[in-house]
């Protein structure tokens, strides 16, 4: 078994109660949930693979497909929505050529629309690799993306 996976499982004492946390740690490590690793998790925790698949597809934060080098989270919460988040999202879709939930072909960006990041006074907000960018217009959002290779 992969050392990293083993370390993650060890951290949670191979207890199936922590399935969601284990999947989160795996996703943090690999940026997505690789199929063969989920099989290892299934054996180690003695949880059917179908059940792991069920959990992995239920929660939005998990991806079964490889992700890009940079993750763009576009906030489409209410406050951002009334301040023009849709236009920002449109501009980003145009720039990257992908829609929320997708990854571009050269694995540069993955795009996600998230419901609220909790900094509503600064909307529209996007987060790229954990860095917050607030008060965006469609044009300035595209400029932000140009800063990531």
């Amino acid at each position, binding site marked *: 078994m992969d050392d990293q996976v083993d370390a993650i499982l060890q951290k949670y004492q191979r207890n199936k109660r922590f399935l969601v946390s284990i999947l989160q740690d795996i996703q943090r490590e690999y940026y997505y949930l690789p199929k063969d690793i989920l099989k290892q998790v299934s054996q180690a925790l003695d949880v059917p693979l179908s059940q792991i698949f069920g959990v992995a597809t239920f929660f939005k934060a998990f991806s079964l497909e490889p992700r890009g080098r940079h993750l763009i989270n576009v906030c489409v919460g209410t406050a951002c929505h009334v301040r023009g988040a849709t236009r920002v999202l449109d501009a980003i879709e145009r720039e990257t050529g992908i829609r929320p939930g997708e990854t571009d072909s050269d694995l540069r960006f993955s795009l996600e629309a998230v419901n609220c990041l909790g900094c509503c*006074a600064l909307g529209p907000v996007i987060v790229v690799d954990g860095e917050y960018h607030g008060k965006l217009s469609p044009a300035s959002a595209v400029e932000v993306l140009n800063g990531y290779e």
Partner: protein
Amino acid sequence: MKFPDIQKRAQEEWKQLWEGDTPLILVGLATCGIAAGGNATMKAIEATLEKHGIKANVIPVGCVGMCYLEPIVDIIKPGRPRVSYCKVTAEAVPQLIEDYLVNDNPRRDMALGTYGDQTIEGIPKFWELPMLKPQVRIATKNCGHINPENIDHSIAKGGYSGLAKALGISQEDVIGEMEKSGLRGRGGAGFPTFRKWREALKSKRNPKFVVCNADEGDPGAFMDRSVLEGDPHALLEGMAIAGYSIGTKYGYIYCRAEYPLAVKRLNIAIQQAKEKNLLGDNILGSDFSFDIEIMQGAGAFVCGEGSALMYSIEGKRGMPRVRPPRSVESGLWGLPTSLNNVETFANVPDIIVKGGDWFAGYGTEESKGTKTFALTGKINRPGLIEVPMGITLREIVYDIGGGIIDDRPFKAVQTGGPSGGCLPANLLDTPVDYANLSKVGSIMGSGGMVVMDTDTCMVDVARYFLAFCVEESCGKCVPCREGLPIMLRMMEEITQGKGKPEYIDMLEKLGKDIIAGALCGLGTSAPNPVLSSIRYFREEWEAHINEKRCPAMACKDLIHYEILSSRCIACHRCLWACPTKAITGRTLESPVIDEIRCSRCGTCLTVCPARISPIVAFPGRQAAVSSEPDAVRQEVAING
């Protein structure tokens, strides 16, 4: 060490920090402050202090609630009152530090207000500012004033004295105090907290659990985030008191994954509380032990629902189950569980210290105490507020929020997020409490409050909330899984100009059926925004359907842009900027917009020289107005 000794030592350190000879600088570093550039401000402060050789204590604090003025920096210079400065960007830092700390110029132009009795001429008192004067801070009292990563700050400000007091009285007395306070669940439903605790205490089955719902999923709401990031110890203390009163040693916090900073600060807080024996085994030498574990969500709104949340903690898909039994009878692993929201817990310590009667002194007859709201949208002073129950919407929007941006007309305020409703201007004098909000067709909810002006389309907002619920529906029950998408399809057709007149009645009927038939809180409240929007803004719906026109000019398919050739200077900036190449024209001629290629992104409006404004948005489709001369068309554009 006994609690009074812990407290005494913390208070001495606190006094030294605040009243010593070294200047103290507080930097607002909650997520909102960081998003506004707070980290760069922090670095600039440290660099500037080093450059001038000034020794000062610089500490991060949470959010004081004035998000629109971030980054906020407070400077406490020895012998001077604490001064709060707003919009302190990294570029502004060197001059501010030099002016105030080196040259003793308090920079009245950047100052927001002073704290305490001592004042500085020309700077108002912080708590007298219009945004803050009507507010009462209980749950958020320490946010923005202490370092959330230092437990001693919390203890010095009274933290954990509620727990120490509770441990000295009986479980029933603690619950009795909660009963007197009249505190009701702040997560939205408003169930009396004391009743949950009493039922859990009386249950004979063991072990029991205390669970904190920090899965603040409502889009447009960030009250819990402010508490988690600004004063995590208030939550831990509240949970420990709950644990003591129901008789358990197990506590869980279920926090959404979108709040990484909150999780980090909670982990630090739990660690520090254990080191001081304020959590863990035999707390403060008593028989009571209590431990708290953090579980992170993974992006599912429905996990804010009690039973779904508990399945998620158990490592399963977070799908709600039929209730009853309520979670206090059968919760985590089928055992008695008391589930409360972050804000509810944050109110508990003060209720125990100051007494239930003190808390009940705020608010109205059946809605006691204060409530936090995340005030956002088209408002001049967005931010986090905490107000006594019973305050009117008008006071919140105009006195605290400072009215609508650019003095535009107020149109609606949305409370309760995707489960709530939009209230129009004639209901602005409605008092904000559980009963009155539900009477007018909305709910208190967890505290999101989004203000909308005449630029916001009520059909589009209702469609937005419904699309949110469709996306987040777990798929278990038929009314929610199948009914909501049918409503959404009709509403999408309406916003695209394909709506039929009978759709309004069909939406109302289907909405009521879904409310009656759905399984959990998500489904039974999802149609609310649509129903309240139809109830109060029916003419707007009719304009979309009958006239194919969006009066607010928000629905992309029901507006179009035109260039008025009489005003255009043919600079062609719009032509080059248009991302879809919808604008064409020959040199020295006014360009034209191809309506079919135009994506209505509005880029042309932003690049066009403002003073001549030849590009105008029109409600409705092109054919309706384009045959009219410019002057008439201009009139239509302005008046809708």
